[in-house]
Each structure stands twice: as structure tokens, then as C-alpha cells.
């Protein structure tokens, strides 16, 4: 038995140098890339990651293996990739949540401890929805009514998640809502339908049926600019509520990755988004438009967003 172990060990030692990949920017990638999606399979980030991976891997000529590390709002995945070898073969898919987690102190690092590569897709807009028979037609109506009836109307928000940003901003704008917890976005729809809550933030593609059947209506979008698909709906920012965000699905690499590798991946993504007709077709069927930001603007976007969030970080952290 000892002999067997010995020979096994010998074989593995002997073959090691042959397999261990030499990583330099010029021949990157020469082996499969591990793409860590910070959310579970089937969600928006996962879908976008898979759609992009399919075309980027054609572009790069190497397979991309996708792993979902969905626990704890994506913080586990971020920590895993942060500590991974910066050889260009581990890539993280994350979005806004990494900034919210940093601002609320759930994680003790920020996006800046990773190397942002590129924004490769933009999820459908988050909106503020209420039941169609609600007496309000704008955010201002809601705020005014809630001041007359403090604590009567219920708004859902989750601690340490982007929705809490909305709640804090609304209260800061003068609203006197009862901010309650709801769980994931899927749970908010029945709560609103069943009169358990009165105002919910939700991604617009999840409530399309309810808008068509006249069960729900939209008071505002949460995007930073008016959305091309909902041109008549004002944003929260326009309504005087200091909160605006988009879910930008973004590739990150471990900090210390060769900038040339980062640039290579970003260019490949840019090429797919700009010029690949079958990718565009696939994304549009999902209700999105192709979207891309190169490394520099991506970094700026995350820096800006984090700065905005840090302004309310004390409330996010529960200090007053």
C-alpha cells in the first residue's frame, strides 16, 4: 500500500509542471476560466452571466465554468474571489449589493479590494409599485398622505439590501411610513396583493402581468435617469427622494491581476455587447437592452455609488 501511495505521489509530481499553467497576459487565457456568480442559479445576475459567458468564451477561445456562490447576499462569493490567486482565471459577477454590503458593514472590504473589469449588462428597472386602487398617483401624494397618517402605510425594505436605501431616502424626504421587512422580491408581490403591505420596490419585469391586468400601478422608477421603456414615469430623484440606482452586472477580478488581462477581458465583453447579433437577440427576449461600460467608467460608477451610500451609512449600520 505504501508503494502505491508513493507511486501515485510520484506521478502527480512529475505531471505537475506540465499542467500548471504559465499565466501571463500575452497568452491569457490558456485554460478554463472560473466565473463565480454571487447569486443563486436562475436569478437576473445568473442569467446575464451565463448569456455573456457563452459569447465571451467564443471570443476568448477558452471554456468558462460557472459557479453559483449565492449565500449571504453575495458576500461569500466576493470574499472568495478577493482572496483568490490574481492569475486571471477567477472572475466574479456582482452588482450594487457589494456596495450596500460594504456601506452597511456586512463586509469589511469594498469593491476597491477587487479589480473591476467591466459592466456587462443592466437589469430591468426597479420601480415603486402600489395597488391600482391606492389613492396616490405620485411619490409626493404618498409622502403627503403618510404625514397625515403616520405609521399607517407599510413599505417593504430589507436591512442590508438596496431596498433599504429607498426606505431611508423616503423617510428622509418626509414620509412617515411603517417600514417593514418582506423577504425576497418574489414574496413582496403576494404581500401587496393580499393587502398586507401598501408600497413595494420591485423589478418591473416581475410585475408586468399585474400592470396589464390593472392590479398594480407604478409611482416612480428607482433608476438614476428616466428609463427609455417607461418614459412617462418620474424617477425617485425627480420626486425629491435622494435615491437612484441600477443593477449593473459587473465582472470583477482579484486585485493584483495584470491590467493587460483585465483590459483583454473588458474588450472581449465590449465586442460581444456591441457587435454580436445573437447575443443582442437573446438579451432582448429577456426584456433588456445590451449594455457595456469599460473598466474606467465602471470604476467611477462603483466609486460614486459607494460614496452616495456612505452618506447614509450610519443609518444603514443602525447608528443614529
Amino acid at each position, binding site marked *: *500500500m505504501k508503494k*502505491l*501511495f508513493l507511486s501515485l505521489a510520484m506521478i*502527480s509530481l512529475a*505531471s505537475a509542471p506540465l499542467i500548471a499553467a504559465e499565466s501571463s497576459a500575452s497568452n491569457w487565457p490558456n485554460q478554463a476560466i472560473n466565473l463565480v456568480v454571487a447569486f443563486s442559479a436562475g436569478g437576473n445576475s445568473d442569467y446575464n452571466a451565463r448569456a455573456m459567458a457563452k459569447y465571451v468564451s467564443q471570443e476568448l477561445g477558452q471554456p468558462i465554468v460557472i*459557479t453559483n456562490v449565492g449565500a449571504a447576499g453575495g458576500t461569500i462569493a466576493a470574499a472568495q474571489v478577493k482572496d483568490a490567486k490574481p492569475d486571471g482565471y477567477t472572475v466574479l459577477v456582482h452588482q450594487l449589493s457589494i456596495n450596500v454590503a460594504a456601506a452597511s458593514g456586512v463586509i469589511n472590504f469594498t469593491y476597491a479590494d477587487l479589480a473591476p473589469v467591466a459592466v456587462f449588462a443592466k437589469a430591468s428597472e426597479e420601480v415603486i409599485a402600489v395597488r391600482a386602487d391606492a389613492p396616490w398617483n405620485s411619490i409626493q401624494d404618498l409622502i403627503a398622505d403618510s404625514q397625515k397618517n403616520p*405609521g399607517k402605510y407599510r413599505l417593504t425594505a430589507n436591512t442590508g439590501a438596496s431596498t433599504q436605501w429607498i426606505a431611508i431616502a423616503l423617510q428622509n424626504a418626509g414620509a412617515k411610513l*411603517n*417600514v417593514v421587512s418582506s423577504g425576497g422580491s418574489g414574496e413582496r408581490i403576494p404581500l401587496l396583493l393580499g393587502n398586507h403591505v401598501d408600497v413595494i420596490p420591485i423589478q418591473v419585469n416581475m410585475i408586468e402581468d399585474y400592470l396589464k391586468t390593472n392590479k398594480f400601478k407604478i409611482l416612480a422608477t428607482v433608476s438614476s435617469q428616466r428609463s427609455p421603456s417607461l418614459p412617462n414615469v418620474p424617477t425617485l430623484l425627480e420626486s425629491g427622494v435622494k435615491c437612484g440606482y441600477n443593477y449593473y452586472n459587473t465582472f470583477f477580478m482579484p486585485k493584483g491581476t495584470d491590467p493587460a488581462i483585465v483590459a483583454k477581458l473588458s474588450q472581449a465583453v465590449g465586442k460581444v455587447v456591441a457587435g454580436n447579433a445573437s447575443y443582442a437577440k437573446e438579451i432582448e427576449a429577456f426584456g433588456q437592452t445590451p449594455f457595456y461600460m469599460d473598466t474606467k467608467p465602471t470604476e467611477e460608477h462603483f466609486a460614486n455609488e459607494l460614496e452616495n451610500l456612505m452618506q447614509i451609512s450610519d443609518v444603514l449600520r*443602525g447608528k443614529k
Partner: protein
Amino acid sequence: MNHKQEIGVGIFFFILAALYLAGSLSISSFDPFGNSTLTSKAIPQLIGGLMAVLSIIHIAGNALKLKRTQTSNETGKAGGTRFEIGRSGWLMLLSVLFICAYIFLFTRLGFILSTILFLLAEMFLLIPAEKRKRWAIFIVCFSTGLSILLYLLFTKLSMFLPRGLLG
């Protein structure tokens, strides 16, 4: 069941409950909108408190029974309950250690190599000594074959297993 042992179990759970309650004190309570009546401390304190009470009941109940049996049956000493690690105990302990080693090597050596090593070690551990020679070749082939098969199967099914020297 032996009452002394039951008292021991009760004491264990009482200590656990006490530690758990002590730990609950350091949970930061956080109420950004001032509307939650119960904080995150409340339920742990309920659970810990209930467990402490129940374990005291368990200890007391068994202490009473112990007293009764001792007075009625002074000679009935429970022999042979002393904990001995026999061959079976060692086998269990080694199994646990092998599993730990396997998990430790899982991401370091990669799936295939760590699985081959684990299967070899665990199979040789569990097989009765007299059969070891006859099964040796089967075990070696089986471990290698199964590891490679599982690796190919699961990675084909879009699942990520740790890549290693042989992956």
C-alpha cells in the same frame, strides 16, 4: 438508560444553554425605523431560557429516579458503562479523521486525486484484514475509476469541482 448518564446529558445542555444565553448579550440590536418590538436578541434568549429550564427538569427528574433506585437496590451497581475505545471506537475515530483529511485536501489536491486517496484509505480501513489482499486490486481500480467517472459526469453537468493536478 442509565440515570447518571442522563444527568450528564442534562448538565451538558444546561451549560450549552448558559453559553448560548451569554452569547446573546453581545448581539447588537438594530432598529433603523424604530418599529420592531422584538430585537434580534429576543428569540435566542427565549430559546436559551427554555433549554436551560428543560435541562434542569431533566437533571432533577433523573436525580430523583437515581435516588429511588439507589435506595431500593443498593447493590445494583451499573458496571461496564465506563467508556472504552475498543477496535470499533478506533475505526470510527479514524473514519472521521479520514473524512476530515479528505475535505482538507479536496480543494488543495483537486477532486480526482483527493477522492482516489480517500476511497483507497477508507476502503482499506473498513475491509476486514483477512480479505485485504484479495480485494486490493479491485479497490485500487475502483477508486481511480469512480473518481474519474464522477469528475467527468459532474463537470459535464455544469457543476464546478475543484481542479487539481490531475483535473
